[in-house]
């Protein structure tokens, strides 16, 4: 299913709802393919300050996937027998279909294995190396160099192996002046103008308000490349087109995290190379003065709970507050149990839910399944009654320990005596799902 826009009127807001890719085969030939097959996840690698470094591939539970350096030249798996016991191949189902950067390779024993950009994928049978989760003021994780290197010791258990990075930009040709970039608000990887770093849009028909829509011009000597072709405008100038639809930028966008063009023109869509999977029960509303808000299918806001982190300012900026994947997983479903569940209700995943992209399925203590986005379990808030309500946002839960030691502070990290000063402020913080690249 492609993105579509629907005007909603709720709580005095004019909200735009985006129905996002569900992983179903696209009927529209211009639809962006899914970024990952079912069962393969994407995980952001961040440094101690939660700054994004790169994106890696993960299995269904987010565990790292690896490339084998010896496979690189052959494109087929060189890891069999004992090697495969140590690094089990990421097997593909019998019905798995290759698409784009994703291929299926046949192993020596006849099994099928997923490969990304021609490189077979593997898990590790032991404990994956991890950098220490960041503290509240920056942790003691490996330095930026080690974290940024998929082959470093913090990223791989063995020499000759490296963590599999998600690098769509390396196989997506773009013309000069256009870049491929992760666009969280558009839920995928899209094209931005190198000139002004604005999102580019495709429109089936010329925009009505030409003053606000700027064509992405191509130089006179430009040649088509990849899915980019050239269209001659009425005035003789040349404009880039993507998959047959002309490209524009919108003057109401002020950064590459804006997507205001879809509010201005009915058939405007961001030009996406890949679209991330989103569960059918999830949507995104764009609320005036707030921007994109992730909601359930009924339009109720979705929230995550993170460990409290010392951060001066910016919590309410669009991408102003988020937890690292590692910390999100540490909190997991423990972030809300018992009495908390009266206020925050898990976003239930159906029994047949499959992880993909940024979405995982996590099990709660009672056996029920819950959706998690970028490692954080998702909830609605009981005090929200209608679309546009965000009563559950920006709430702190203070959790001091008791002198008997009965209260478990491991969920907040407050029990970390070795980093007493760094981990001061034992508590949890509830907030709307953050869209960050």
């Amino acid at each position: 299913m492609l993105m579509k826009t629907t005007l909603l009127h709720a709580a005095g807001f004019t909200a735009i709802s985006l129905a996002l890719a569900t992983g179903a085969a696209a009927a529209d030939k211009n639809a962006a393919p899914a970024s990952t097959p079912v069962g393969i996840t994407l995980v952001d690698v961040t440094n101690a300050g939660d700054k994004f470094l790169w994106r890696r591939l993960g299995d269904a539970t987010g565990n790292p996937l690896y490339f084998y350096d010896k496979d690189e030249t052959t494109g087929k798996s060189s890891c069999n027998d004992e090697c495969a016991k140590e690094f089990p191949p990421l097997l593909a189902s019998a019905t798995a279909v290759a698409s784009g950067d994703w291929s299926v390779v046949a192993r020596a024993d006849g099994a099928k294995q997923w490969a990304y950009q021609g490189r077979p994928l593997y898990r590790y049978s032991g404990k994956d190396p991890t950098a220490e989760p960041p503290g509240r003021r920056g942790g003691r994780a490996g330095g930026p160099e080690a974290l940024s290197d998929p082959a470093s010791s913090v990223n791989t258990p063995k020499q000759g192996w490296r963590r599999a990075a998600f690098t769509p930009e390396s196989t997506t040709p773009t013309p000069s002046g256009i870049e491929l970039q992760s666009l969280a608000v558009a839920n995928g990887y899209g094209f931005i103008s190198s000139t002004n770093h604005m999102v580019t849009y495709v429109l089936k028909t010329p925009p009505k308000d030409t003053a606000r829509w700027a064509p992405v011009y191509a130089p006179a000597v430009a040649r088509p490349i990849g899915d980019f072709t050239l269209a001659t405008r009425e005035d003789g100038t040349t404009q880039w087109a993507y998959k047959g639809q002309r490209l524009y930028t919108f003057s109401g966008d002020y950064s590459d995290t804006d997507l205001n063009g879809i509010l201005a023109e009915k058939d405007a869509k961001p030009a996406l190379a890949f679209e991330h999977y989103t569960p059918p029960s999830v949507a995104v509303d764009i609320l005036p003065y707030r921007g994109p808000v992730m909601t359930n299918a009924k339009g109720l806001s979705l929230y995550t709970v993170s460990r409290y982190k010392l951060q001066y300012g910016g919590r309410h900026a669009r991408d102003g507050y988020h937890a690292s994947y590692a910390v999100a997983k540490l909190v997991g479903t423990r972030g809300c149990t018992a009495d908390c569940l009266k206020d925050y209700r898990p976003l239930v995943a159906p029994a047949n839910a499959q992880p993909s992209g940024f979405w995982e399925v996590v099990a709660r203590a009672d056996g029920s399944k819950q959706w998690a986005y970028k490692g954080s379990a998702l909830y609605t808030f009981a005090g929200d009654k209608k679309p546009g309500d965000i009563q559950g946002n920006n709430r702190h839960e203070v959790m001091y320990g008791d002198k008997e030691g009965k209260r478990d502070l491991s969920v907040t990290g407050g029990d970390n005596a070795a980093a007493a000063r760094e981990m001061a402020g034992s508590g949890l913080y509830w907030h709307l799902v953050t869209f960050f690249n």
Partner: protein
Amino acid sequence: MTFMKILSRTALVAVPLCFAAAPASAAETRGYVISWLATATNVTDFKANCPQNKNGGRTEWTIRDLVAVGYTRKEAEDIVTNAPNSTELPADITRKTDTRAVLANGQHVSIYNYPEAVTDPNIETVSGKFAYGFDLGGKTEANKFEDPDTHSKVDNQMWRAVGCTESFRAVPPVMPFPEEVAWNVMVDTSPAWSLMITGDDLSKDGKVTLTFDRVTQHLERDSAGNVMSNASYVIDGSPKSHNVLHGEIKDGMLTITPSNLYLQGEMPYYAEIAIRNAHMRITQQPEGKLLGYWGGYVNWMRFIYMYTARPGNGSDSVGLYHAIKKLADANPDPKTGQNQEISTTFRMEAVPAYIATADGKVLGMASAGDVVAPAKVAGQ
């Protein structure tokens, strides 16, 4: 208590809370944004407030922490003297002091997250006579202060707990240090709070309505770095920080019918401003700014969390934790009997602002420039 005595104690030039005259038949609404909000301090007579002067500053409580983990006083003083500054002690020593909280099983844990497991250092608390505040109905007479402006008996156990701590020896416009740091970041990064005052004729005494909201923008600064007057703000439609209070203007002073107030905050400033049984008194300054006090009961644990979450940030946070807990004076926990709330007073300032809805309707007009001459005051 005459109006003139209020003027002399606070050095305010309080004019009657009046505005440009409006047609008699039309109600009017003036808009403001809260430009300053912090614990109300009264430090004019430190000796009277804290006769023992035993809390000291950062150096002293660092020495106390070192003594608490076994150093002699002399050893502790030497360690502090030899440190680059009193806060940058060698890591192994800091680790000792930071984990001197001991659980029942002997395990050492963080003092900031387990303050209950730290021996109460019994910091000195205020024993002076004066503190800003309101009579919240507290039953213990011995706990009451006298308000330096109104001379009424008031409840402000928060000031009693914090008033002998160095970082609270702040004279406005300076805030207590931890609040100052966080507030000045908030000014530039966090949604502001708006206040609209509505009445039939704000140039006269009468009933008014106060409407508090959160807005979508952060406060704007002027060229001098202060919060700008007459800027425009859009109300955040979320009702979470929407409060409608009722009050009256009488003899230049706006007070409210006690009510509850909830405003979303942002850590490491206050997580929220949540005042139960909130009282207010507000006056207008010649330039149109509002100045006043809010008092009521706040959850003591959520207050001190602001401090324990930022170790060393201008306070002996563990000492304050125990002091505030001991002096909490309302809303006992039915199981433990521990009071969960403490009487508190905030000092506030607000500057005129245009307050509008998201669809462009201006609800509150800025009032700067519309001040009229002070009315005649009784006793003047």
